[in-house]
């Protein structure tokens, strides 16, 4: 009996070692451990051996059973592992192929610029407000101290709906709306569509975009205005960007200035893009709010002062991305939009 068991063990161990697939493993399990398995049958014969040997043989049989089971489970693990490896070996793919089924939409470059500017000014304490595209002559011109005889009021410059209602020519009427609604102190910005009677060409569009900013508080100075613009330009175009405040004229600010920045092409060296001046011109107009404008909105110009600034976003967008034709911004050609 003892020899028989040992023989079964020897044979089983050798068989298990030679296993090369899971099916044979199951066969082997049945062969030894199944209901009619060799080991099972051998154990059934326990009754035939002398009583005193039974515990010893029994112990041996159990030991052998555990050994076979242990070996079987190790063999199973080994085989599974091998199978997995072989499967992955077979599953080699061409990783150079693209499927092109996922799509992420593209943000319009101009609206992207607006959003960035809004976020930037929000971080500087400005609140975003909105104004209508269709405006009154009163808010678009009169309240902004625009002279009655100013050419910008002509039919050849401004789109009119009635004598008193027009398409706003700038975002500045938002200043008036804000000052009439909000008591100072206030810090607002407003971006949006503006309209001027310009035929379409590569640098003109009858519809374009501006961003307007306004600060009203006690003791606001030109120095504050310049600091605000300086911070904004550096954020937008980089720390090495220089700004130049050039005295200018706007009816609604006094003093007024235009802001030039280092030429985007030559960074200030002077090139054909900047007529050799080293400056990119007229990026932004700004100034201290004209006392008449403050008074028009019911704000005491002796108590409060403020500054305003406005800029063309289309141009900023074009400069940032090297876009040479403003029409591209409004044609919505996928081949253009999907570059951003």
């Amino acid at each position, binding site marked *: 009996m003892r020899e028989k068991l040992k023989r079964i063990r020897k044979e089983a161990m050798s068989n298990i070692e030679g296993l090369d697939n899971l099916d044979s493993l199951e066969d082997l399990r049945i062969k030894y451990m199944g209901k009619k398995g060799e080991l099972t049958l051998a154990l059934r014969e326990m009754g035939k051996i002398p009583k005193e040997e039974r515990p010893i043989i029994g112990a041996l049989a159990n030991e052998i059973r555990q050994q076979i089971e242990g070996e079987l489970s190790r063999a199973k693990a080994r085989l599974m592992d091998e199978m997995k490896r072989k499967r992955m070996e077979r599953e080699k793919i061409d990783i150079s192929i693209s499927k092109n089924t*996922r799509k*992420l*939409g*593209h*943000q319009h470059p101009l*609206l992207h610029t607006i959003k960035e500017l*809004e976020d930037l000014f*929000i*971080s500087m*304490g400005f609140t*975003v407000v*909105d104004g209508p*595209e*269709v405006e*009154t002559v009163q808010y678009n011109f009169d309240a902004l101290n625009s002279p009655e005889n*100013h*050419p910008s009021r*002509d*039919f*050849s410059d401004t*789109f*009119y*709906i*009635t004598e008193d*209602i027009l398409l706003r020519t700038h975002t500045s009427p938002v200043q008036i709306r804000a000052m009439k609604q909000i008591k100072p102190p*206030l810090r607002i910005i407003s971006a949006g*569509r503006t309209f001027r*009677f310009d035929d379409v060409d590569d640098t003109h569009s*009858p*519809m374009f975009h501006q961003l307007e900013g306004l*600060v009203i*508080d006690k003791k*606001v*100075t*030109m*120095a*504050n205005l*310049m*600091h605000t613009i*300086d*911070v904004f330009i550096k954020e937008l175009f980089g720390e090495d960007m220089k700004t130049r*405040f*050039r*005295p200018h*004229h706007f009816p609604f600010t*006094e*003093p*007024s200035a235009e802001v030039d920045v280092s030429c985007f092409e030559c960074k200030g060296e002077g090139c054909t893009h900047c*007529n050799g*001046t080293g400056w990119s011109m007229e990026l932004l107009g700004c100034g*201290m709010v004209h*006392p008449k404008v403050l008074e028009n909105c019911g704000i005491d110009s002796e108590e409060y*002062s403020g500054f305003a600034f406005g800029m063309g976003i289309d141009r900023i967008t074009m400069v940032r991305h090297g876009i040479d034709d403003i029409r591209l*911004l*409004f*044609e*919505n050609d996928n*081949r253009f*939009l*999907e570059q951003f």
Partner: protein
Amino acid sequence: MLLPLEWLKKYVEIDEDSRTLADKLTLTGSHVEAIISLDKGIENVVVGQVKNIRKHEKADRLLIVDVDIGEDIIQVITGATNFAEGDYVPVALVGAKLPGDIYIEKTNFRGIDSYGMLCSLEELGYEDNVISKEHREGIFVLDKKYPPGSDINDILGLYDEVIELEITPNRPDCLSVVGMAREAAAALDKKLRLPEIKVDNEVDDINNFVESIEIDYDLCNRYYTKVIKDVTIRESPLWLQIRLMEAGVRPINNIVDITNYVMLEFGQPLHAFDLDKLKQKRIVVRRARDGEKIVTLDGVKRDLNSSNLVITDGKEPVAIAGVMGGLDSEITDDTTTVLLESANFNGRSVRLTSKEHNLRSEASSRLEKDLDLNLCEIAAERVCQLVEQIGAGIVVKGTIDVYKSIPRERKIYLRPEKANDLLGTDLTIDDMMDYLQRLELTPTLKDGRLEVIIPTYRSDLNIEEDLIEEIGRIHGFHNIPIKPLVGTLTRGEKPYDKIVEDRADEILRGLGLNQVMTYSFISPRAYDRIRIKPDSKLRDYIELINPLGEDYSVMRTTLIPNMMDLLARNYNYGVKECYAYEIGNIFIPKELPIRQLPIERRTLSIGMYGDVDFYDIKEVVQILFDRLGIVGLEYIREQDDRTFHPNRTASLILKGEEIGIVGEVHGDVMDNYDIGSRVYIAQLNFDKMVEESNLDRRYKPLPKYPGIARDIAVVVDEDVLVGELEKIIWKNSQGLIEKVELFDIYVGDQVEEGKKSVAFSIFYRSSDRTLKDEEVNVIQQAIVEDLEKQLGAVLRA
């Protein structure tokens, strides 16, 4: 404006190079847009004196000319004939370089050698628009003696520079060399030396020449008249012509050139009439009569109307005031007596008239602004001085000067502390006084304030802040130390509707749609193209009075035409698939014609073509609503919207109110836009979506208990919408249904004709217990019964 620097330097001492000067002018407010070098790259062209002219024996049209070029006399062949022996002319020597990369070599014309070329102005590189009639053809004969051999560049001032300035409309005084000399003197802190105006010899009496001057006081502010007699019309001296050409003005003849010269110098336009050509010896400035006509200097016959101001001789118009003179009274070679007009007209009238007749000139662009009335006299006297100086005629004694009132110097008070407060500077009163004095303003300190006398030509200075700007700009904005804002406000905000819009942008882009942007105005014909009924409210659009063209003439009441346009454009460009969205305003009038501002409603449009169908765009809409936290969106079959496919379109209903539409575009509309692919469009009231949105998210505990999945398949009429079935399923859920999923629709042999089988998978779960089969069975049973009752559904075995 073009400002020749040599001219400027006559009135103010400038040692700086042009770049430094340009920077200083720019930083004090006179924006230099360009520095233009007059150097045309001419080399080896010298003055030569013609010594001998003889015919070329073998060529009729050629002349052989001996020219003295100083150190030598050379022989040159030319085809021109407009010169005589003794004349001084430009000679391009062998080895000379002319504009346009032309190099002069020794040549041989039919056996005779030519050692150079006599030059015309054109050959010297002058633009057509500044070459006078006399010099358009032939050799450029110089006006007087010059040492033979002199560099022509020196004679013509071609080593000089001109700066191009942008002058803001509030500073018409700067549209002149004198005005800019004042600015330059202030910017550089240099002394100004303006020409002293005086006429030495005046004879006779103006009243012997002119009977009367009458003006329309509404549109004419001043009319100042001088007469010049014994005029000899000829070419101006070269120095005068050069100044004009440098400033971009074509020389005409001595009298006209002087008026133009003085206009450029002082900024006051002038006009010279041939007095003998006036039918009556009087001037009447009045509005034109409707139907009156005038032939202007450019030879164009123009119809006048009562909004045009004209100068008449008491009978008919002889000039359009401030815009252009008449041909009949122009200065010609035969003119002997000149009536000189130095006038100031209503700026608005000049502007509108010049625009109406498309005649913007150096004169009109100045007179349309607020010019100083005192200039009329200064400019007229300066013309007389120059006439005398170059011997063009004799000035007649006396003036006729008509005006209502002439402005005088005024005073503005300035508080120095206010200036520092506004600028953010620490300037002393002395600094401020210095800056003001440099600008020829006269400040006096009185009780801590500055009383500042303002010359009449500074019409732009009216209030304290104006003076603060003057101080600021002469000090230099760039010299103000920048300081961060201080104050009470520190936190910026974005309004809720903008936040929702940003969120919508992210969601839609995440779904693969590109953000687009289109014009707010469209063509009224677009409404036909998208098949809007003639009586539709959508056609209550606002029209522009003065659109750029029909295509941009009405304010849109729908975004669909813009969307169709851009989809069509992409389709034409061969873009295979295009998914786009726009959030923009539509304009809804409160009444027509409008008397108040319209409603501007934020609207969302979505457009798709490519590998998509109705369900794709509907899904985009649904995900957008879900993610914006808008619940309860319903879809109702829409068969009446003519833009859309009658059987593939749904109205979107929220809380019983229509909020938009989604569907396949009608075949006719696709044809109208030439799109050969099915197009899907949705349009939504975004304002309403913002109102109904909810971006707050509260955590709901994750399910703790297992759920039960059940399928249910029913047979219903083909017309029954799946949505209706789903609604009934949900109605019976007793709060225990987590999800209903459609997994099969079957039409065919297995079901009766006209019927379909619809199968759902329903997942039940309770949040507080493990569900029992029996509970679910009861609900399933209730659903089946309700489906049968409501929609005639039969449970499919």
